């Protein structure tokens, strides 16, 4: 292990974790704040990635698009596409019970993946799309990390402010009791739709950054169950409803996921072929341990500070509910 190697790996690790962090924050906006059970993260992520790749990529005979526009345009288009998709899905499903929304979004993500796979005129199909540029051609370098980091901070700020604001309060209220929110004059569907669309747009944004940082996308990158679940694990481990927790959880889980191979590398050589499976087993076990010891995540949700009043030690009752 050399210092320079460590540095390069560090750049890459942080960039990837940052992109995951954006996804997790977006999910926190949807689930942590609003109780919207989105299991279609991979779908919105994919739509963002493809949308951005189509407009920023080079012209090609393989598929449509290839306008070679700059990344900011790609990001904007990605967010727009994901948002529009979320709006359409949301308009139809926002009324559903949360677990139904979950399965609906899961299904939609799978449909999106199949469309990407099979509509090769548009997406390059199973062959994927290559040559997606990144600013200054810095696919996994410092520039990309800086871009991702700035975006992450910005999204953090937006989601955190949304959480402590009256808007977040209404959404948490809707999460707790829809009827009451209605009786208080809040348009449940509108608020939910806002959260769903905003969160999904952020997911699209993450997709755009991902495409740009990795330079090549194909349907394999967007496995619905897998891609979506990693993000959920990050959110729940960190503490849903808590933005700090979300970010910490993201980095932690990605670290564990990535470095669990260090453990399995210690296995005797003749076990090497089982190493992959053992690694996955350990990841599962670790996740269980986190859930069992900290079921509300490392940083449980707390009522937000009273923004109209200087902070004082609010002694909030944190006991669990039993009845």
């Amino acid at each position, binding site marked *: 292990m050399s210092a320079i190697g460590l540095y390069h790996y560090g750049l890459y690790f942080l960039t990837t974790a940052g992109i995951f962090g954006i996804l997790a924050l977006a999910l926190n906006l949807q689930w942590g704040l609003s109780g919207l059970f989105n299991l279609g993260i991979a779908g919105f992520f994919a739509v963002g990635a493809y949308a951005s790749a189509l407009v920023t990529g080079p012209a090609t005979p393989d598929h449509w698009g290839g306008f070679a526009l700059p990344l900011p345009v790609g990001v904007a288009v990605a967010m727009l596409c994901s948002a529009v998709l979320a709006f359409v899905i949301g308009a139809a499903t926002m009324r559903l019970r949360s677990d139904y929304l979950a399965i609906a979004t899961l299904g939609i993500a799978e449909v999106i993946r199949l469309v990407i796979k099979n509509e090769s005129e548009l997406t390059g199909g199973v062959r994927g799309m290559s040559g997606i540029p990144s600013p200054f051609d810095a696919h996994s370098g410092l520039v990309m990390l800086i871009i991702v980091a700035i975006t992450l901070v910005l999204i953090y700020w937006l989601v955190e*402010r*949304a959480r402590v604001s*009256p808007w977040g309060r*209404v959404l948490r209220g809707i999460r707790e*009791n829809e009827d009451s929110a209605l*009786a*208080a*004059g809040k348009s449940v569907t509108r608020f939910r739709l806002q959260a769903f669309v905003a969160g999904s747009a952020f997911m699209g944004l993450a997709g755009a950054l991902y495409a740009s940082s990795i330079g090549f996308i194909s349907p394999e990158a967007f496995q619905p169950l897998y891609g979506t679940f990693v993000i959920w694990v990050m959110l729940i481990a960190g503490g849903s409803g808590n933005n700090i927790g979300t970010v910490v959880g993201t980095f932690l889980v990605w670290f564990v996921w990535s470095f669990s191979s260090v453990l399995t590398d210690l296995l005797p050589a003749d076990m090497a072929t089982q190493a992959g499976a053992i690694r996955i087993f350990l990841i599962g076990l670790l996740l269980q341990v986190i859930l069992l010891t900290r079921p509300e995540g490392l940083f449980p949700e707390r*009522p937000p500070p009273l923004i109209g009043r200087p902070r004082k030690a609010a002694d909030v*009752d944190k006991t669990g509910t039993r009845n």
Partner: protein
Amino acid sequence: MIQVDNIAKSFGGIKAVDACSFEVAEGSITGLIGPNGAGKSTLFNIVTGFLKPDSGRILLDGDNVAGVPPEQLFHRGLVRTFQTPHEFSRMTVRENLMLVPAGQRGENLLQSWLRWARVKDQERQLLDQVDDVLAFLNLDHIADTLAGNISGGQKKLLELGRTMMTDARVVLLDEPGAGVNRTLLATLADAITRLNRERGYTFCVIEHDMDLVAQLCAPVIVMANGSVIAQGDFDTIRRNPQVIDAYLGGVPA
């Protein structure tokens, strides 16, 4: 102010409300009583837009509002409580109240992101208002408790508290007294009277506690089997044999 005009609603084969008509006059505290299952809560649900009537009209200031969704009616000054408390359980008691007022700037996501100072200003005023309500209802010591963790009666109070957070014109209370301690109930009655007198709220109150009804309500409307069987002031009502038979059960109220 509110006119219920020939409303009918059935669930499957059950006629919950049937050809029901009455009026809640502006400035009154109208009582709505009747046996269990008479259709009172269902009627509230219809008036406040949570249910669509099968037929009939609901007139609010003369406009038919039957079928208008609840969140819109709220903005026309129609506010309600629920019979079983509908608190926001994983939010503090204070937040439960703060959520209610309409027209909060910060409810607009863009304003929250871009005009923080103004949002903050408004929150400051809101907090003071909430403190008053909390003190009034004796809930100030549990202001920062999660609403899911307070006692049944406290939840009822919180329910009432939410109606006090608005510029309501008509407040529909579904059994505000059930489960509330009698000492507090007296305070509650005072509160309702004061809101009625000082702020001009119109009330329509479903209640089974005849002391409270006697003290507060005029006129009183009696429902049974989905329609109105009697109305008038409480003293007349309590002597109405039909009402005694169906509802009071021979108890001298």
